[in-house]
């Protein structure tokens, strides 16, 4: 039996997933990007100083990340150093954006894969609040708040407005949470809406505008620092940032991380499905010097099996630069062999969907000719391997809560799974909150020393230069690669996280991470393949193409075909 889900999620871009199902399990899978990404072409012949402005329009969700990595790529080509203040301001924007993204991903984009909203109506609010209080000392776990949310939910149902929660899978046989946990999750779903705004506000204050920040420049940032002037980054604005950081830290540590741990423990099967590709790649983040040779969070290559660990150490890291290639064998582009991004080509060659041939607009990236999974799980595994203490602390706490709810110790290997990806994302979010505070302190201390520099002017030489920039974005490793001749861009390629994870089979016909992770997933009801959606959502899928046109005449956009 073949199941086709198209498009699969309330996500950016059009992702189609096909699965063969036999005996109630997935036996084969295909991940297909349904839109052509040729956006790099728009950057050809442009001034490299402007590239980030266009690059951040690639995606509506990850606006800041494409902007940041674009300036890093051009700075790398120039060998240009970035003033400390600019690094810290960029670091805070990166961290706040990622926190926003992780919170929204869990609660608004994927919690309803696990949480049955309708079941929450029959919960006992007192009992639900008691469970919540036993897990966390979050002050908003009160009986009053739980009862108020339940009443609000009843009103929404009574007035036929359950649609505001999107198309949930309430009543699906794979939903297993007790009503009280469902209510707890709905309460926190609403609180998450409030708290993610605090992260957006930090991005807006530091980036001068959100969405689409305005403050970047090749060579630094355009934020003049003058603690007394109203038109610049003032003490008052920085104080607002600090206040929001502190409120977010509480929410992430006392709500988000706790909820994911509890839900994982209550769906223990889902810590055994969905591992897929266990060769992991991430990059270091939060540069602490002007050259990008020291970072506060490690990143690197956690090799599959017993392959060991290779750290990625600097913005000039040769191991990273030389390892990346993209194959078009199963993608709708011409080109016979895998190419390095500097030599990348984007020549479309559409064939229709061919199971054994070409079937996607996404290329298949490899790292030293192997598929790699990217994302918070890859990064958490690298940080723990590298001995990063704050990550170990948050991961230990996560495992302790999950094990307590489960009733016996869960092994760390449970992270290689569908719910493990959610868990790692929550752990990384807690680490990011610590970083947000630390980068704020570093910025204030540096300004306190009298350093107000935020920008080094770039100068473009005649002749050809090339460079790459990387960034550990919310969905994983993002890299931009550019070749510049006489101050103009001649080639530009973006290798985005979802390309790593959602890519089709590679040159050796090996499955990509989405595809491999779907193998052996159970399917209770082929007409409503919630299990497929759970596993794909756990990657935080986003196909970086940002078509968002209204289509009022289009029928229900999600179709599930079974044949």
């Amino acid at each position: 039996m073949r199941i086709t889900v198209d498009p699969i999620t309330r996500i950016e871009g059009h992702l189609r997933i096909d699965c063969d199902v036999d005996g109630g399990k997935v036996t084969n899978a295909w991940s297909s990007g349904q839109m052509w990404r040729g956006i790099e072409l728009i950057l050809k012949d442009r001034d490299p100083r402007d590239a980030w402005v266009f690059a951040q329009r690639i995606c509506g969700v990850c606006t800041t990340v494409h902007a940041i990595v674009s300036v890093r790529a051009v700075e790398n080509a120039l060998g240009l150093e970035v003033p400390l203040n600019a690094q810290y301001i960029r670091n805070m924007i990166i961290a706040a954006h990622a926190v926003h993204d992780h919170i929204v991903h869990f609660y608004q984009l994927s919690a309803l894969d696990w949480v049955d909203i309708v079941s929450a109506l029959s919960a006992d609010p007192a009992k639900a609040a008691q469970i919540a209080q036993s897990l966390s000392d979050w002050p908003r776990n009160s009986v009053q708040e739980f009862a108020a949310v339940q009443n609000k939910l009843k009103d929404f149902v009574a007035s036929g407005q359950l649609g505001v929660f999107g198309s949930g899978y309430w009543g699906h046989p794979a939903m297993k949470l007790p009503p009280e946990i469902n209510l707890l999750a709905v309460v926190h779903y609403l609180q998450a809406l409030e708290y993610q705004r605090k992260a957006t506000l930090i991005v807006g204050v530091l980036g001068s505008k959100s969405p689409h920040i305005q403050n970047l420049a090749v060579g630094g940032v355009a934020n003049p620092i003058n603690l007394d002037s109203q038109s610049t980054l003032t003490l008052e604005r920085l104080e607002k940032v600090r206040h929001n950081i502190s409120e977010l830290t509480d929410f992430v540590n006392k709500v988000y991380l706790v909820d994911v741990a509890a839900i994982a423990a209550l769906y223990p099967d889902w810590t055994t499905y969905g591992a897929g590709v266990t060769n992991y790649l991430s990059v270091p983040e939060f540069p602490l010097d002007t050259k990008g040779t020291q970072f506060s969070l490690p990143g690197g290559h956690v090799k599959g099996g017993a392959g060991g660990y290779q750290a990625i150490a600097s913005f000039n890291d040769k191991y990273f630069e030389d390892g990346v290639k993209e194959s078009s064998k199963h993608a709708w582009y011409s080109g016979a062999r895998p190419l390095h991004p500097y030599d990348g080509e984007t020549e479309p060659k559409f064939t229709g969907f061919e199971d054994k041939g070409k079937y996607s607009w996404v290329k298949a990236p490899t790292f030293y000719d192997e598929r790699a999974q990217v994302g918070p799980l890859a990064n958490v595994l690298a940080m723990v391997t590298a001995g990063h203490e704050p990550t170990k602390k948050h991961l230990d706490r996560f495992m302790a809560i999950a094990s307590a709810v489960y009733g016996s110790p869960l092994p760390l290997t449970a992270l290689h799974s569908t719910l493990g990806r959610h868990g790692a994302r929550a752990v990384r979010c807690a680490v990011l909150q610590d970083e947000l505070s630390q980068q704020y302190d570093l910025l204030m201390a540096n300004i306190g020393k009298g350093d107000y520099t935020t920008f080094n002017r770039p100068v473009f030489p005649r002749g050809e230069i090339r460079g790459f920039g990387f960034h550990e974005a919310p969905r994983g490793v993002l890299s931009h690669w550019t070749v510049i001749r006489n101050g103009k861009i001649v080639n530009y390629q973006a290798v985005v996280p979802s390309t790593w994870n959602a890519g089709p089979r590679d040159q050796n016909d090996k499955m990509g991470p989405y595809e491999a992770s779907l193998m052996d997933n159970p399917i209770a009801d082929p007409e409503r393949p919630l299990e497929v959606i759970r596993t794909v959502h756990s990657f935080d899928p986003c196909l970086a193409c940002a078509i968002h046109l209204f289509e009022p005449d289009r029928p229900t956009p999600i179709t599930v075909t079974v044949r």
Partner: protein
Amino acid sequence: MLGLGNLLLSDEGVGVHAVTALRERYDLPDGVEVLDGGTAGMDLLDIIAGRDTIIVVDAVRREGAAAGTLLTFRGDDIRAAFGARLSPHQLGLLDVLAATSLLGEAPGAVTVIGVVPAHLDLGLELSAAVAASLDALLARIADELASIGIVLRKHRP
């Protein structure tokens, strides 16, 4: 006034082009805020929550309608036309509006002014048909504002 769209995909970016043109041609009175929302989703929550009126300009695909045709959707029409189903985007405008309802901070009134695109090819320029409709689009926006008692005046040359 919220212009939505992807500037890199020609007519998809018409909402952003519209708010840019609006700012260039008119003095905006106090109480009117104009924003290029790009293709953002939940980032817009804070911007939309609690407003008296939101006017959204965006590309709208409509079977059989000529490129450049203007369409207006209001209040419940928006939900009827686009509601009760998932957005094909990350989190579309409707999801954000739904979130404001959940928080009890829904805007007082919402109007979507749509422009039918000719194509969504890669490119920074609008198609000829949609570019030609820009004056009519700005006039429609001005009418919409006039209907709630806000008069736009052109910049003095």
